């Protein structure tokens, strides 16, 4: 299994294949289709992450010292972005999630999703994922 750093580096490499922003987003969208999602009837308000223009639901599981995430969104780009995060965080120890640097976001040019703009809630998602992990540290 690859390390936390290796997983991020793999994503960076994947993104380097494309020059065009539209293609990068196509990839993000495709990623979103792959994740374990949360069916509409299983979504609950306490899973909702505030601060996004689109709605984001996040559910976590803690199993054998590792964290696992289920997520969904009514916007497919948002869902793709969570998928990226899950790709990196899934199966990691809570400590890693809380402490380690998420350098890939800037490198692949998604830093705008980190801006304090309340339209896109990457900041909120990362924060929630770290908070969930913190419960098990």
């Amino acid at each position, binding site marked *: 299994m690859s390390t936390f750093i290796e997983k991020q580096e793999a994503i960076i490499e994947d993104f380097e294949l494309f020059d065009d*922003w*539209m293609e990068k*987003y*196509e990839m993000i*969208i495709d990623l979103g289709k792959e994740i374990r999602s949360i069916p509409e009837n299983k979504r609950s308000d306490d899973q909702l992450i505030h601060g996004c*223009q*689109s*709605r984001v639901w996040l559910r976590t599981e803690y199993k054998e010292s590792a964290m696992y995430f289920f997520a969904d969104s*009514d*916007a*497919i*780009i*948002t869902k793709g972005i969570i998928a990226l995060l899950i790709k990196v965080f899934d199966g990691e120890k809570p400590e890693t999630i809380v402490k380690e640097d998420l350098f890939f976001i800037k490198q692949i040019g998604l830093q705008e999703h980190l801006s304090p703009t309340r*339209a*896109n809630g990457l900041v909120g998602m990362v924060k929630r994922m770290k908070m969930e992990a913190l419960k098990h540290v």
Partner: protein
Amino acid sequence: MNQTPDYIQELRSKFPILKTEVHGKALVYFDNAATTQKPLEVIERVQSYYNSENANIHRGVHHLSQVATQDYEDARKLIQNYIGAGKESEIIFTKGTTDSINLVASSFGGLLQEDDEILISAMEHHSNIVPWQLIARKNKLTLKVIPINRNGELDMETFETMVSEKTKIISITHISNTLGTINPIKDIIKKAHSFGAKVLIDGAQSIQHGKINVSDLDCDFFVFSGHKIFGPTGIGVLYGKEELLELMPPYQGGGDMIKRVSFKETTFNELPFKFEAGTPNIVGGIALGTAIKFLKSIDTKQAFSYEKRLLNYAEEELKKIDEMTLIGTAAEKTSLVSFNVGKIHPFDIGTLLDKQGIAVRTGHHCTQPLMDFFNIPGTLRASFAFYNTIEEVDVFINALKRSLSILK
């Protein structure tokens, strides 16, 4: 032939930011309902103020202070004249539309008594809802909402039945920032006055798209923001009829708004200063004056009617797209289009448009009750100013199609 006329190209050349590139693409700025761009002369006016006349105003005997005061008060006159107000003292400088409405809600609304009624409409911006909710709760007033139909037009029949002697103020937007609907404010004002009710017109979306004459309209208050009329941020206007402003207690206390302060008793200054506590946004006021001068220097009639052409063209092209739902299909509309495509989230489209250099707004546009009414999470809104071109609409439509091909 559908081509941008030369006079528009010339106007456009006065706005430096429009030459910017975004993500390597030429910027297409279709977020004018959120804020407008500034012509060079406004930007230069701000600069020249700081470079050669910056001073605090109204009480200084020294040269800079006198020049700055004169320029600030000249700006007030320009605005008075531009919106057809009777007196300079009826023009209050505020921070913006929101500040203006809060001032009236608190100061005029504070005079109202239990069971008095306030009317707003279902298409109001949060800035024309929340201030009234706050004062209604405080003073036990009743806040009623004029309904709209599926086209996004006011239900005027119901409105007629809602006004009564109990109605003290109707606060309504001239043009909806989400739907583009132009409301029949003249009729509303007449009807309101026949019951002795006052009317506040939220002109945030109308002042930059047409000629306003508050005396003709006979509205009691008219409010707008500088940043939406090619002026600076942090400045806005409250026009109010003198007799009402005289009646209203001051909103904020501080320097400039007093005649005489003692710990025993404080008396307040004359209008407009009674409502302008503290050092104002001096450069904001002056440069808003410059924006008004700019508007007076161009052929606005031509410019505004060109905006309609942009609207018609954009709507036509949008309607050709599969699963397109236009939100806001009133008979009388200003130059903005709000829409959704199928079940695609507006955020997704907005994100992909941005990557193609196109700035549109997505979301609830600070009109959540309207989103609830249409039962949608938000819309995608493209809003035009006269400096936008027909070619930009083409770029936008193509980019939209490309985005949809990815999202579907």
